[in-house]
């Protein structure tokens, strides 16, 4: 399954909307989109995962990578992640690096 990645620039934030599966094959695409951002100066990054069923470990590592490059006081939101994705993030200790919300309205 393929992954489409849409990047939109907000006033202080960037939203990346994903659709498809973030697996071993597609995670590098996400990583290259992330590295293309000015992560070191980004205050807020929103990853919209409402249309994503599966995120592999490579995908989760790309997310962790982004957070570590962002300023310390910045925020990384995961929007609409499925229960399975949230579970994996929680179990593996990545949850403390991100903020999990159901929709962008909660931000």
């Amino acid at each position, binding site marked *: 399954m393929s992954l489409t990645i849409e990047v939109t620039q907000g006033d202080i934030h960037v939203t990346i909307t994903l659709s498809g599966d973030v697996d*071993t*094959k597609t*995670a*590098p695409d996400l990583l290259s989109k992330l590295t293309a951002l000015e992560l070191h100066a980004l205050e807020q990054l929103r990853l919209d995962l409402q249309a994503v069923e599966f995120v*592999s*470990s*490579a995908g*989760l*590592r790309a997310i*962790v*990578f982004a957070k*570590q490059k962002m300023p310390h006081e910045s925020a990384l939101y995961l929007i609409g992640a499925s229960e399975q994705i949230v*579970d*994996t993030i*929680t*179990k*593996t*200790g*990545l949850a*403390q*690096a991100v903020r999990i919300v159901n929709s962008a309205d909660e931000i």
Partner: protein
Amino acid sequence: MEFERIDNIPTETIEGYRVRPGKPLPFGVSSVPGGLNFSVYTSAGTSCTLVLFSRSEASPLAEIKVPDHYRIGDVYSIVVYDLDYEDLEYGFRIDGPFEPERGNRFDKSKVLMDPYARVISGRDEWGLDPDWSRAYQYRSRVAFDDFDWEGDSPLEIDDADLVIYELHVRSFTKNDNSGVKFKGTYAGIVEKVPYLKALGINAVELMPVFEFDEFENSRIHPDTGEKLYNYWGYSTVAFFAPKAGFAASGKFGMQMDEFKQLVKELHKEGIEVILDVVFNHTAEGNERGPSISFKGLDNKIYYMLTPEGYYFNFSGTGNTLNCNNPVVRNLVLDCLRYWASEYHIDGFRFDLASILGRDPWGAPLSNPPLLESLAFDPILSSCKLIAEAWDAGGLYQVGTFPAYGRWSEWNGKYRDTARRYLKGDDGQLGEMAQRVQGSPDLYQWNGRSPATSINFITCHDGFTLADLVSFNGKHNEANGENNSDGGDDNHSWNCGAEGWTDDAEINSLRMRQCMNAIGVLLTSRGTPMLLMGDELGRSQHGNNNAYCIDSEVSWVDWSLLESNRKLFEFTQSLINFRHQHKCLRINRFDHEGSNYLPSCSFHGTKPWEVNWSAGSKQLGWLMSCDDEATGHMDAVFVASNVAHYACWFDLPRLPDEYQWQLCYNTGDRDSPSQANPTQYHENGILVGERSMTIFAASPRET
């Protein structure tokens, strides 16, 4: 002036992959700019091929024969560029002679696992039947450390202050009634951290978590049809990899993160993590076993072999790792350093550790280099090193294990003495007195301390506490070996009926005996260790060797928390009591006691007078020290009566400014733990049949 580095440029292309000679250290896989460095040791192999796979694919992606000039000494190393390491699995083919009589078992048709692999795939989900048609079963993967520890580091709790809780990762939360979401996993234990914290223990000792194969020797029970597994996992496949099947995220290959998260969450609550490690043998078995890694890499280096090339079997499981060979010694050191630094592990318990002190021909060494190296290693210097100081080859070293001032021991003599004493055997008082004060008979003469002794009455091997007081003999039929497996020297007593009974008196006695056992354990000097679930009265229905059982028989039944609430509360309270009373945790045999009382003294029904004769069944012990923080004396008096009749104990007199408070009385069926102990006005106490009372001194209010 700065030149561009040229030490990292590919020098040639093999099979379409850009490569260059690698660095021999570190062994295994390491990351270099743009590529991965692979390094593997073989002293007698004649060529090495790196085999690359795409994740989960049966056939290789590529086979890169490492050019001979890439070999330095006995180490082949190669850098391969442009690999997608999230998708990569790899192994090695080593060519060389197949001449078992000379110890060599090379077979280039086999793909071998990297002994330094940090993640293994192939058994990603527990109990999922493997595809045995695949030639390469346990597949090395690449992993790097990007876990956010948030400032965590090992806790370094004083050995004498530990209360250890031994647990099996899957058994702890697998039961439907565990109340956790991720049952039977590392993440499941995280959900139970509040329980462990409330219980008061400050270390968990995890039964094996290095990657093992639950399907090794798995079979169907001939009568019940139940599937039997290598459930406990005392048979290592990969020493550097956490067991994927114990991780809820194992199917995503994220077991490293999940295990680190467990360590971090336990540390946050002040609980150390000790790993039960198995270096005495591997999952490769004897000459009939599979070639997973060592056997095909360098059989005669890694295993102890007879002159005819057969495997020595000091472990009772097929082979014996050749731990005092310098190469193997380094592997063990590298492994433990890795777990201590990468996973923040606080200590290690070595299964059948006496094997680690044997020379390559099996003879016990007086100064075993491996044990010495571990004791003085700079990275392991704060790690607890705990030996199971015996092996299956007849070496029993409790009290004589080469300790170098660092090693402590599972004290098997504590277990046996306490069991005999508690069931009222004749002639146990003298030895029980030794065990209670930290076993000076075993450890004082050689300059060791009470905390050298890991005191326990039950552990994964043998009966659970509830079974110890409910069964005279083992009932291991469920293991499918006609009840011939498991030990027969259980020193157990069923209290009047074998197995479950409706007899209220028997059940009441059993509950009391459980409390007596926990009472003795937690008021002894040395480091106490509890077996998971014993605080709940967990039973394995008389099975004293449930190594192959993956069912409710071995899983903790959390409904017991309600039905055996009193036992839980008693254990919880007494652990807290131990933490409160320094005098129980004194870690010196030459400690002089408090201003008023000796450090440890023994008493009978009359203070300061013990009847040491064989038929005597009453023993009291009084421990004392000065508490520098408060300026007060700390003193605890235990009066235990293992006779089948009640006995009056006169209490030892305290100085005028102190008074006794009765804190526990296992003979008090309704309230064995006194919620708010108050001044005890009598000069003595009637200690009921098979009961114990515990008093603490408190300053008299003026």
